[in-house]
């Protein structure tokens, strides 16, 4: 153990080393480490936020999907209803048309019957007239008995 001027030399070296560390080494290293800690914290919170966003998005998409399903179901129901309605309307229309056609046909039939009857009556009348004419032979004068003939015709 011997103290000498080495002590002073080592004090100076030590002071210089501490000074250099204080100026050059310590601040950037601790600053960098703090910055990194901050970055990690930011990253973690960003990850949390992203997870939250994802959950929100999933929820929103599920909602949208449900809505779409509901509206699709509604549309289908509406369409079915409309289709039924159209069918009903068509049925109704067809019925009406059918009835109309039937009625027309019936009217025509009646008309033709009437006509046939008229023709028949005329023919019967002329037949009867011919028959009567034949029976009576000359006794009947068409001109004289025209009134009579007409009334017979009408009665037939």
């Amino acid at each position, binding site marked *: 153990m011997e103290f*000498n001027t080495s*002590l002073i030399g080592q004090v100076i070296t030590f002071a*210089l080393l501490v000074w250099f560390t204080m100026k*050059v*080494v310590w601040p950037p290293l*601790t600053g960098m*480490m703090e910055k990194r800690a901050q970055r990690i914290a930011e990253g973690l919170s960003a990850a949390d936020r992203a997870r939250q966003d994802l959950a929100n998005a999933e929820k929103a998409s599920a909602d949208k999907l449900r809505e779409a399903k509901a509206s699709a179901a509604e549309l289908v129901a509406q369409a079915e209803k409309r289709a039924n309605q159209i069918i009903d309307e068509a049925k109704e229309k067809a019925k009406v048309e059918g009835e109309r056609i039937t009625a027309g046909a019936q009217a025509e039939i009646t008309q033709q019957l009437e006509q046939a009857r008229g023709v028949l009556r005329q023919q019967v009348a002329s037949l009867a007239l011919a028959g009567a004419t034949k029976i009576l032979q000359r006794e009947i004068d068409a001109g004289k008995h025209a009134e009579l003939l007409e009334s017979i015709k009408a009665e037939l």
Partner: protein
Amino acid sequence: MAEQQTSTEYILHHLTHNRLHSEGAMANFHLDTFWVGLILGFIFVGIFGLVARKATDGVPGKLQNFVELIVEMVDTHIKDTFHGKSKVIGPLALTIFCWVFLMNAMDFFPVDLFPMIAQWVGVTFFGADPHHVYLRVVPTADVNQTFAMSLSVLVYIIGFSIKAKGLGGWIKELFTAPFHAEGTVGKVALLIPNFLFQLIELIAKPISLALRLFGNMYAGELLFILIALLPWWINWVLGTPWAIFHVLVVTLQAYVFMVLTIVYLSMAVEDH
């Protein structure tokens, strides 16, 4: 070397500093302590400065990771213990830990390696007498080195006290703590005992810091020298366990010096 010398000569040779022999104020300057300490200091600030310069807050490399590990260890200690605000305590503690560790770690080199190189250099380039080329490679086994650091720490302790309490407050504390009394008479009576206690406390800190480190490293170095006196084929029996144990001592002493510095400085800024 050991062949031509007696054991006593060998040991004494290893325990003699390389001195700057000159007259006057600079007499007896330990060149070996100075240069080894300076080179190791440059290694420390070189590596740490380099890493600090290109430090990235992204993914760190291996060296940066290692440097960060040390810085974070020191920083955690300071944040746990020291509650004041100071720009110097972090660099101070880091410098102490790394520098002391590197200087202690010089013990791991074979005890004859550097002295033999020095002898060869001295004889070849300076024409020196081989028996008068001395080199001690463990600066912390030199009281001048350990006291240089511990007395610097003492200066910091006093500086921190004055900065935290003001010059008046610090002087007042020197005379009014640790013993407190009620009334003027009691206070005056306690001035001297208080001052003595404070003085002892203040002086004990650098002495214990310096002597603890010096004692450990001197003892370690001496044991390595004694082990080197054994025949070469049995050397490892003692050398290996002592070297392995010394890994612990080297790290622990650097760590203890750093932690105690932080503790003393945090005591300095706190009120009694």
